[in-house]
């Protein structure tokens, strides 16, 4: 069994709206950021497909295969359209 790690997740734009929160601390068994997004999409009913989402970890955009480490701050960033 995989052990869970503690991370912080911050939500922007449509994600903040759909989640109803700007930020939360959570425990996850996801190994990579793409697994984390799949987990959050399922739990919160996020509408955006993974290919339309960029995740940043600790202040930098990362590839979807980036492994998560305890204490990571993950930011979910959708494309934003308003002007």
């Amino acid at each position, binding site marked *: 069994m995989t052990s869970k790690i503690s991370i912080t997740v911050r939500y922007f734009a449509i994600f903040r709206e759909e989640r109803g929160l700007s930020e939360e601390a959570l425990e996850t068994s996801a190994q990579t950021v793409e697994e984390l997004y799949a987990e959050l999409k399922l739990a919160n009913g996020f509408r*955006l497909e993974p290919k339309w989402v960029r995740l940043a970890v600790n202040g930098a955009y990362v590839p979807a295969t980036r492994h998560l480490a305890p204490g990571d701050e993950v930011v979910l960033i959708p494309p*934003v*359209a308003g002007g």
Partner: protein
Amino acid sequence: MSVRFSLSREPILAPVLSAADAGGFVDFVGRVRNSNEGKAVVGLEYEAYDELALSEGRALLEEAVRRFGLMDAACVHRLGPLKIGDAAVAISVAAPHRRQAFAACEYVIDQLKQRVPIWKKEHYAEGPSDWVGISPTPSDLYRRQITLPEVGCAGQERLGSSKVLVVGAGGLGCPALLYLAAAGVGQVGICDGDKVDCSNLHREILFGLPEVGQAKAITASATLSRMYPHVKVVAHPVRLTHENADEILGGYDLVLDCTEGLRPKFLLNDRCVGVGIPFVQASIHQFEGQIQVVIPALTSCLRCLFPSPPTDGCVGNCAESGVLGFTAGLFGTMQAAEAVKLLLGIGRPLTEETLLVDLRDWSTIKVRRERDPGCPACGSGNMERPLEVEWREALALNANWIDVREPVEVAAEPGPTSVDWIRKPLSTFDGGLPAGTLVIACAHGVRSAGVAAMLRQQGREAYSLAGGIDGLVDRTVP
């Protein structure tokens, strides 16, 4: 009573006023003097920006009438070459009493010299001739920013010789345009094909109720030209498309992406990268926004982050999600700041990072971004077949045209008659579409994008008409 302001290339006399209820008439005549600041003057020449001088001159006289309770006022300004002793300007006012008349006359000549765009070139007995400012000089206008060591006279000149295009005269574009023109950027372009709508006035601060229904690019350029006559303002009153983008962008040093909607944002990204023009990109959502600077071939672009953007419906826009004016105002102002920083080489613009700001709690994050070598726009990748097509591109597809609007919408606006529409209202959509390529259309291009995406998943060659049928009705369709 209507005031008269005129320009004349022939010798002038003081205008004659008649007003039975006026007791004080004052005429002022300004003549060419034989010296200025210790230099012997032999003659001079006046030049005007006629159209603006006339409207500004008339506005000045009307203002004097209100301010001093005048019965009448008139002014004529001479243009062209003048000799010593020739009348250059003549002002006549009529007031109930002499006191208002003297004060009003003095007010008009003082204001005229400051506000009305008429320039004087003096010819001296010795040495070269010189333009003398009636309108304020750059050093008067920009003194406060020239004082900054980061700007200085050289920086101000650089701004004055720069050309910046603002795409989208909306919530982001309005404040950006104001600050760029106010800073003395030499040429400011405005590209927008929309008209002013009253529901956007809360954030489009260049417009008010009188402008509702007018073409945004045209009215914005008229307002900016009036406020900043020394800035060249160019209106491009069209929507940016694949067809016209390169022509509009050509010649500009820098572009501000102040558009609304993912389609225009990615189109602008692709064309700026294609043509090699740096741009400052910003987008807002409710109380939040993102801003970044893209320098083609040096920094990552929008498609390095999002190779294929979602359709607009998935991420919300100002109409659906709502927005407060100041969110747009803040980000538009930040775009102008980045533009001036880039033009003058000040500080560290957001070329390596995206800045995200949430106005609710002022939390900010800077996210480092890197180029993707496989980027479909600035790298080796290939661009995905676009889901949305313009009318002209769609015609070239030789497709079947499917209208998914409801019967009541079709009755109100049948759409162009140059194609054979197959009406398939979305509420009773049953499939049953003809073989071959399909172009799906609705009123604004939102429902049709959803249908086209669904059909593509079923393996069909389907496209959505960008902007929808209502978007075409505003324009001339070939």
